[in-house]
């Protein structure tokens, strides 16, 4: 007995000192191999008395477990050490730059159009479109603006022929005409798009964007118009309250007509929308003129409703603090990167309009 205990102590000692996995394996076969020391001890059990055997077998088993356990731990210990050493060598500088990221952007005008569409979609409007080139009838005459009407002077029109028959639409209102001519009442649409006036300075561009709105049904009155625009402005500027003023105005194609101002103030050189004692005109609207309804074969004694026109670029400038309208159309890479929106930033109601 004392022999095997000595052997055990001796090997435990050896294993403790050992750091090489191969040598540990050698020790393992030295002890437990076919002719291993421990294996041979077990073989001897057959040749001794029963009483002695019982005791020796139990001792042997304990020693075997202890040694095997020790070997296992030792192997794990060495392996861990080796792996750690290898990983240490493999270490890279993760602060080196990643492969080039190419970040695309959505133009503010497109983003604002999507915001507007999202807001009006929530209250049941669908999106209509019309061509950029219009005839004189759809752009003016059908909209109750006959040739000799001074209101035509308010629009500096680009013409495509000398008879002034074909032109670039000066507003999105001809989409009202097209929509009503091809369909049947009721109508509930918005129509965003490009519009053109031959006017060019710091605050005017020869091309800009408008969104037209039209809601025609049996009992739509000015209260609905006010409610709809109040809802839109609050949603668009993402505020709970907005100071808003409806003020009488004149457009040939609506009667009564109104212009809408929103309150603002300048705080630390920045414009704050919705408060303050200054007014900013942002849109024109009114009840669709009975003459327009007649022109598009809608019976004005049965149907009535409102229309509005909003400058998209202007709204975007106010919301996103952009000062220069001309810069919208100058394709300066720096400007586009700065004011553009991430393509995954799709305006929606549930996620919030802007981030």
């Amino acid at each position, binding site marked *: 007995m004392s022999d095997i205990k000595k052997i055990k102590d001796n090997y435990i000692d050896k294993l403790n000192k050992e750091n090489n996995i191969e040598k540990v394996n050698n020790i393992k076969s030295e002890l437990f191999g076919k002719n291993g020391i421990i294996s041979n001890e077990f073989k001897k059990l057959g040749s001794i008395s029963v009483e002695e055997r019982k005791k020796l077998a139990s001792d042997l088993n304990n020693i075997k477990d202890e040694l095997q356990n020790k070997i296992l731990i030792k192997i794990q210990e060495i392996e861990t050490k080796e792996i750690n050493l290898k990983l240490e060598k493999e270490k890279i500088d993760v602060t080196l730059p990643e492969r080039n990221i190419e970040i695309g952007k959505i133009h503010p005008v497109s983003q604002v159009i999507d915001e507007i569409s999202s807001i009006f979609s929530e209250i049941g409007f669908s999106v209509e479109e019309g061509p950029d080139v219009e005839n004189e009838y759809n752009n003016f005459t059908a909209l109750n603006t006959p040739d000799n009407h001074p*209101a035509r002077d308010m629009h500096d029109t680009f013409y495509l022929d000398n008879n002034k028959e074909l032109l670039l639409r000066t507003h999105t209102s001809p989409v009202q005409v097209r929509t009503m001519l091809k369909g049947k009442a009721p109508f509930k649409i918005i129509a965003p798009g490009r519009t053109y006036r031959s006017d060019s300075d710091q605050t005017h561009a020869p091309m800009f964007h408008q969104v037209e709105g039209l809601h025609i049904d049996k009992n739509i009155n000015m*209260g609905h118009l006010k409610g709809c625009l109040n809802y839109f402005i609050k949603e668009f500027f993402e505020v709970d309250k907005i100071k808003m003023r409806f003020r009488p105005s004149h457009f040939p194609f609506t*009667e009564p007509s*109104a212009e809408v101002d929103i309150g603002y103030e300048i705080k630390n050189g920045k414009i704050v929308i919705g408060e303050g004692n200054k007014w900013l005109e942002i849109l024109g609207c009114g009840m669709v003129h009975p003459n327009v309804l007649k022109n598009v074969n809608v019976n004005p004694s049965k149907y009535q409703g409102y229309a509005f026109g909003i400058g998209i670029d202007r709204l975007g400038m106010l919301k996103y603090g952009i000062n220069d309208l001309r810069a919208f159309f100058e394709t300066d890479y720096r400007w586009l990167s700065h004011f*553009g929106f991430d393509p995954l930033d799709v305006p929606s109601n549930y996620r919030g309009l802007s981030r």
Partner: protein
Amino acid sequence: MKFTVDWLKNHLDTKFNNNQIIDKLTNIGLEVESFESSTSELDTFIVAKIINAKTHPNADRLKLCDVDIGSDKTIEVVCGALNAKNGLLTVYAPPGSIIPKNQMKLSVSKIRGVTSYGMLCSESELLLSNESDGIIELKNDKYANKIGEKYFKNTSEKVIDLSITPNRPDCLGVRGIARDLSAAGAGKLKINKKSNLKYRGNQNINVTIKKEKAQGCTIFGSCLIKGVTNKESPKWLKDKILSLGQKPISAIVDITNYVMFDLNRPLHAYDADKIDNEIIVRSSSKGESFEALDNKKYILENDMCVISDRSGVLGLGGIIGGTRSGTEYSTKNILLESAYFLPRSIRKTSKQLNIDTDAKFRFERGIDPLSIEEGLIKASELIKQICGGEISNLDVKKIENYKKTIINFDPFLFEKTTGFNVENKELIKILERLGFNVSKNKKILKLAIPSWRPDIIQPIDIVEEIVRIKGYEYINTLEPIKTRLKPTLNYYQKLFHFLQRSVASKGYLETVTWSFTDSKINQLFKENDEEISIVNPISSDLNVLRNSIFPNLLYYLKKNLDRGFKDISLFEIGPAFKGKNPGDQLTVIGAVRAGKISRLSWNDKERIVDTFDVKKDVIQSLCEAGINKDDIIIDDRTPSYYHPGKSGGVYQNKNEKNAIAYFGEIHPIIMKKLDIKTEGLVIFEICLDYIRASKQKIKDSKSEYKFSDFQKSERDFAFIINKNFKSQELVNIIKSVDNKLIKSVKVFDVFEGENIPEGKKSITVNVTIQSEEKTLNENDLDNINKLIISSVESKSLAKIRS
């Protein structure tokens, strides 16, 4: 329309203060653009303090003064005054000021080699006294805290500037504005004093309005004023004219102008002695001419309404008078005209001749036809008062009688339109104050429309009158009705949305450029489309509608390259025009990509962008937008602005005429013509209108979900094939060998040159074979392999490489 509050109070009894008046005007639809004192030449002179006065380096008698003018920085002024010393408060005139004494305009100037910004003034220079020795010395106690403020108080009255909408000619006169204010409860309209003017004799210049088809004049009223002394206007009148932003001319002209702005009643004064016998109001004949008061000679067309005498045209009725009969200081006898001209005629003539005058602006919008006498009387009274003279009886010639407009108005229309109710009593009060004559017939109101309101012709116009005077704040704010009539977006609108954001997500910056472009650049991209010229372009390099998006995109690409950017990806989605009629336009995406991939990368090899970069972008975008990759075919038919060998088209059908997209390098000749210098440039375009709308939603058109768990095998094949043979064809041949078993075919190596015969190339493909029914054994696979090789060899004349 400009006027002062004082002028308004000539017509309105009001307790309102200025701010209340301003608010009221805006609230009833007369938008106030500004309310400011008219600017004065003396506004520029400001209180200043000399901080430091030292001797001029090049002149002992001059001083160089640092002057505090109330802004962040001091200003350096050269001054010759002996009394200029440190701490002196004085008056400073910046460059641009006009010195009252000599009317000289100051400019920045060098005095003995030192730049002087403006000057310090003496009392005599400002016409305050004759004291010209030294500069003004201001008292410390009074001016010490006024540095930077105006020295002269602007005493001119504040002027209200209204923006009058084209439907309201009546408010182009102060009285009309007063009437609107009175209707809205801002005071009481004063009653015009009865004139006690004494007339003597008849107007003995015969007036005839010719009865012609195109006659633009229906009433011509006049009177003669004999023995006047024309002169400079008195101060009150000059001030009125100045407040309008106009220059006083002479009493007679100023009076006619004053009456025009006061009553919205344009008048014209002729020197009666210069009229040849009689006045004939007639239509012009082509070629007639006259010299107008703006000192321009106008050559007339047919059918313009002219006032003439026996010698010819005197003036254009209602637009502008002529020099031949103009009044002067020496004028003794006047013929005063007060007429009615038809808006349509005025507008046509003024447009043709491109003349804009205050009279034209008013007649074009519609003048009160019943104000003929009122205007003559008011002006005559003033002329008599200021210039003396005797006034003849009024002579009014007409070819048409004015008919009052009557509207039957059902008050229910008001509530139906505005959504709120106004008591009949109040409603009638508003209308009466606006000048309507109201009588009741049961529930219907019979309204006689005032003669000064040509804009009111139907019941809806009455609704507008009532609601604007009552106040828009009474309109309720109703909750939006959420009813939806149809889906927000249709198929193509969704496609627009998806493609726009798909392309952007590939690293492209979206831009928006003009729909017009330079014809010279457009020329390179227009293919067979017609050129669409703009008759009145904003500038000669934006003179046509764009036939393609690329002219603008490449123009701005070049600008950004010039800014020093090298790697640029840009796109625009918008219209490209194919003809000049409405609807002749396509919605197109145009994209450009310039520069290098992996520029200055520490771990990747950099390379120039190439056709396959944009091919990936375009195909991936199309797939993301919902187009099935298996449903598209690539072809090398492309527009001429592409590199003929390095570009392709994406088609949805083999024989389709129009590609849904193109991609590739731009033609080198175009690069040269546009002088674009970049390492590499590739472009693509997608035409949304040519994409076939799928009838089903993607969720409904998906095939059944099937997959195979049997073992799949991969085999590589290398073929020697004609150089021009398209890899797409080869892939299709292989796929068609067994559509079920062959799951994918991937080209993974292409090369020419060494060991490959001239005119040939080697293509290696990897084919994945898998059955849905069993694991294929060697025999099955061998059979497929043989079939693949034989099909390819027979259909493409290729040879398998051994």
